[in-house]
C-alpha cells in the first residue's frame, strides 16, 4: 500500500471524503476522530492489517501522519 492508498483507507475509516486528508491533517480537523472514531480505527487496523493497538496508544495520536507511521512501522506502508 502506498501513501495515497493509505490516506484513502484512513478517510474511509473516518467517513471522510477521499482526498480530504493529508499526513499533516490534525485530529482536531477530523470531526469523526472522536472516542468512537478511536474504536473504529482500532477495529479497522486489527481487521485489515492484523495490527493490535490499545486505546491509550491511539488516543495519543495527533495527526493523520501518526496513523501512517503505525502502518509503516508494521510494514503495511511502502
Amino acid at each position, binding site marked *: 500500500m502506498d501513501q495515497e492508498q493509505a490516506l484513502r483507507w484512513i478517510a474511509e475509516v473516518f467517513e471522510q471524503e477521499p482526498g480530504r486528508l493529508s499526513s499533516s491533517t490534525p485530529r482536531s480537523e477530523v470531526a469523526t476522530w472522536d472516542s*468512537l472514531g478511536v*474504536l*473504529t480505527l*482500532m*477495529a479497522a487496523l*486489527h*481487521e485489515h492489517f492484523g495490527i*493490535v493497538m*490499545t*486505546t491509550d496508544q491511539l488516543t495519543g495520536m495527533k495527526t493523520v501522519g501518526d496513523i501512517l507511521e503505525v502502518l509503516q512501522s508494521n510494514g503495511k506502508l511502502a
Partner: protein
Amino acid sequence: MRFILVDRIHELVAGKTIVAEKTLSPEEELFRDHFPGFAVVPGVLLIEMMAQAGGKCLDAESQPRGYAMLAQIRSASFRQWVRPGETARIFATIVVSQPDYATARCHIEVAERTVCSAELMFAFVPAEQFVIGYRDPVLQAYLEGQPATCEANASIGGGKLRCDYRDAEPRA
C-alpha cells in the same frame, strides 16, 4: 414498554455465541403507531434485540472491562417484516473481542427464515457506572438454569467464565 428486548437465552457460549428469543405482544402500544393497520416490529428494535443478545454473550464472560454497549451499527439489512406476536430467534457470533471493543455478526430468524442481519460494534462501560449489585436479569436467569459447578459449565461449551459471572461477589 420495558426495554428488555431478549425474553430468554436458549444457548450461550460466553464470549463466543448466543441464541436467544423475543416476542413482542400485539398489545404493545408502539404498534398503534408503527403502523396503523400495518403493525410491524420497528427495525431499530430488531437492531436492539441483536445488540442486547450480543451484549449478553460478551457480558457472560464477566471480564473487568465492564458491560458491553452498542457503539456502532456497521451494517444492517432488513429482509422481511416481523409482525406482532411472532417470535424472533436472535443469533449473535462474536467476531472480535478485545479489551476496548468487540464486534459481532448477528441475525434474526422468524420461523427459520432470516428477517434481518447486522454487524455491530460494542464498547464497554465499567461496572462501577451501574447501580450497585446490578445483574442482567435475563442472563442471570439463564445462568441459574445451568449446572452448578464450573466444571459442568465448562463442559457445556467452554463457558467456564460463566461460573465466574455467577459467583462474582457484589460490589461493596
